[in-house]
């Protein structure tokens, strides 16, 4: 096992920051699902979930920058700076580095639109934000294919855990969205069905206290088209 020498410092730096970026991005996606489903982190206020989602993504950008710049600066392999942004133009491992460039572009789009979202409006911001779900798998494939680090040992476990975490969060989001939409649909249907069988002079049942309502039980209907 060779140590980090002067010659290989940048190469190790790039690989290390790459791993950290991947872990941070996994956390960001999981937190994003938590924000959307109005979940809470134990012991923290609600605004902490959004705050962490934003802060960790910005930290991830910093690590990503170091990851890219150190890989470009390293003399052992030739990767042009421009190949970090324009996919598949690198001399070294064009496909794998290219995937990284794709992930970087998507990430930049998501983050920049989020920083200016008050100016660009809700619809455009949300539309671009969905690209995060495309960026993550691309980044994951880039990490696994560009270096052998993640294919064995502790780093393999770390990668698997991160990927599984994101997969679990995504499945949870799909299931919970479906469930809450179904609850809202059934509530609306029962309101209309109640009118359908409406005997307009009904004998009322005994008093029952109104059930406490969590906000997601009464999610407003999904709107299909444009809303201003």
């Amino acid at each position, binding site marked *: 096992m060779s140590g980090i020498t002067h010659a290989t410092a940048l190469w190790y730096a790039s690989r290390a920051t790459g791993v950290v970026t991947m872990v941070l991005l996994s956390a960001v996606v999981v937190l994003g699902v938590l924000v959307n489903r109005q979940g809470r982190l134990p012991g923290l206020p609600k605004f902490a979930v959004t705050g962490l989602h934003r802060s960790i993504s910005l930290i991830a950008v910093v690590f990503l920058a170091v990851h890219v710049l150190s890989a470009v600066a390293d003399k052992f392999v030739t990767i042009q700076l421009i190949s970090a942004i324009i996919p598949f133009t690198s001399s070294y491992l064009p496909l794998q580095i290219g995937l990284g460039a794709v992930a970087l572009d998507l990430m930049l789009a998501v983050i920049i639109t989020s920083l200016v979202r008050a100016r660009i409006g809700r619809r455009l911001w949300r539309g671009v934000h969905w690209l995060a779900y495309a960026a993550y798998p691309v980044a994951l494939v880039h990490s696994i294919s560009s270096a052998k680090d993640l294919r064995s040992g502790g780093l393999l476990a770390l990668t698997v855990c991160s990927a599984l975490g994101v997969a679990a969060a995504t499945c949870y989001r799909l299931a919970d969205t479906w469930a809450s939409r179904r609850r809202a649909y059934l509530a609306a249907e029962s309101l209309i069905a109640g009118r359908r069988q409406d005997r307009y*002079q009904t004998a009322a049942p005994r008093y029952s206290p109104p059930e406490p309502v969590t906000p997601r039980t009464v999610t407003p209907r999904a709107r299909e088209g444009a809303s201003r």
Partner: protein
Amino acid sequence: MTDAATMTSPLAATPGGSAAGGAPAGHAPAAGAPAGHAPAAAPQPGTPQPQAPQPRALPRLLPPGGAAAVPQDLAHHVRSHGPLRCRRARRHRSGAGDGLIAEIAAAGLTGRGGAAFPAATKMTAVATGRRRPVVVGNGAEGEPASGKDKHLLWLAPHLVLDGLQLAAEAVGARTVYLYVHAGGRLHERLTFALAERAAAGCDLRPVRLIAGPPRFLAGEESALVSRIDGGLAMPTFKPPRSFERGVGGAPTLVQNVETLAHVALIARRGAAWFRQLGTAEEPGSMLTTCHRADGTTEVAEVAIGTPVAALLGLGSAPAQAVLTGGYHGTWLRAADAARLPLANAPLREAGATVGAGVLAALPPGRCGLTETAHVVRYLAAESAGQCGPCLAGLPRIADALTHLAGPDPDPRWLTHLRRWSGLVTGRGACHHPDGTVRFVRSALTVFEHEITLHRQRRCSVAGAPSAAGGEPFLPVPAATPAYSQDWR
């Protein structure tokens, strides 16, 4: 006839023989006016307006004949009211320059869609916008208890279509829409009327007939604009308001079809003629839908200021309460309503409004709470469901009211009802929750005695409140639209 004496409008066409238009002969006498037969002397322009309605001047919008009135095709329309010359639009940035808008301002015409906003002010605001405006005639009468717009569009569509062209000319619009509910014979009839006009070359601006969904909120201004733009007929967040940014982002003039019909007549006959009926602050005539206590319903054109008691025949068909302003309106005790005229100023003092001219007299054999609860269940289901408080609150309010209308309601329902009413007011993107709460609160006031009686397992109506079945007095459409289906 006074037509020659009052023809001051610069846009009036050659005065045709308009004798047929004003005769009240055969008109159903319940239209709020003593069936006077002696025509008064023609008032000269400039004399103070008479306060009492002059029976021979009604009906104006509807063709004569009352219940036996015949729908007017283009030929009849031109014979009754005279032809109309339409000119190309010239946009006036100053706004007040156009003759018609000034005439409408002088006439004091207010919107007949319920808000009673001055028509001339709205037109000026739209005309002085930054882009070429769009005009929409709103014939989507979402209120189930109101039938006047459908009635007007059925009997006198050409008045409305004239008004659309005139309004478009006045504000400088090139695009014109007419928005009605989908389906039925009315849609066919309007298509035919538009074809007649196209053949005769009346319309300089082609009118696009748009069908909206049969929902309560479909006629709301921003919902209408959203539907015309191709989306769902659901209200949107304001600002921007429709007169600033509406259809396709352009300033949009949305006027009720009755208002447009009045515009068509003001253009021919002038502001002074318009002011011959009604009161000084609220001039003109209006269409009302009267649900009398004996079960009859009539759409009648009356002068503003006609006593409510006369319109509803409260003398011959006594009522226990009167609903003014439709399902977003207010219940009044019969004694209070009996001494009020149909005008906004006196009604506002009593806490009510004219709205779109819906009046309903609840007969003594009906439980007011049961009727109200039935309507509020409908209103709750008609929420667009976009805003949390409305979606959460209205069904609960309906539920509470249903319990109160039943036998032996727990008093806690009233507490919850009051709290929920306070929680939904002003917290939606439109006024649906506010209007519903106004209706509910007035019911709680006027039918307070019913709540007390229900707690004792009695009701002012014999055999109620646990008697099932029977038809509701206040009309409510059958529940057919599926969830989120019928908003297009």
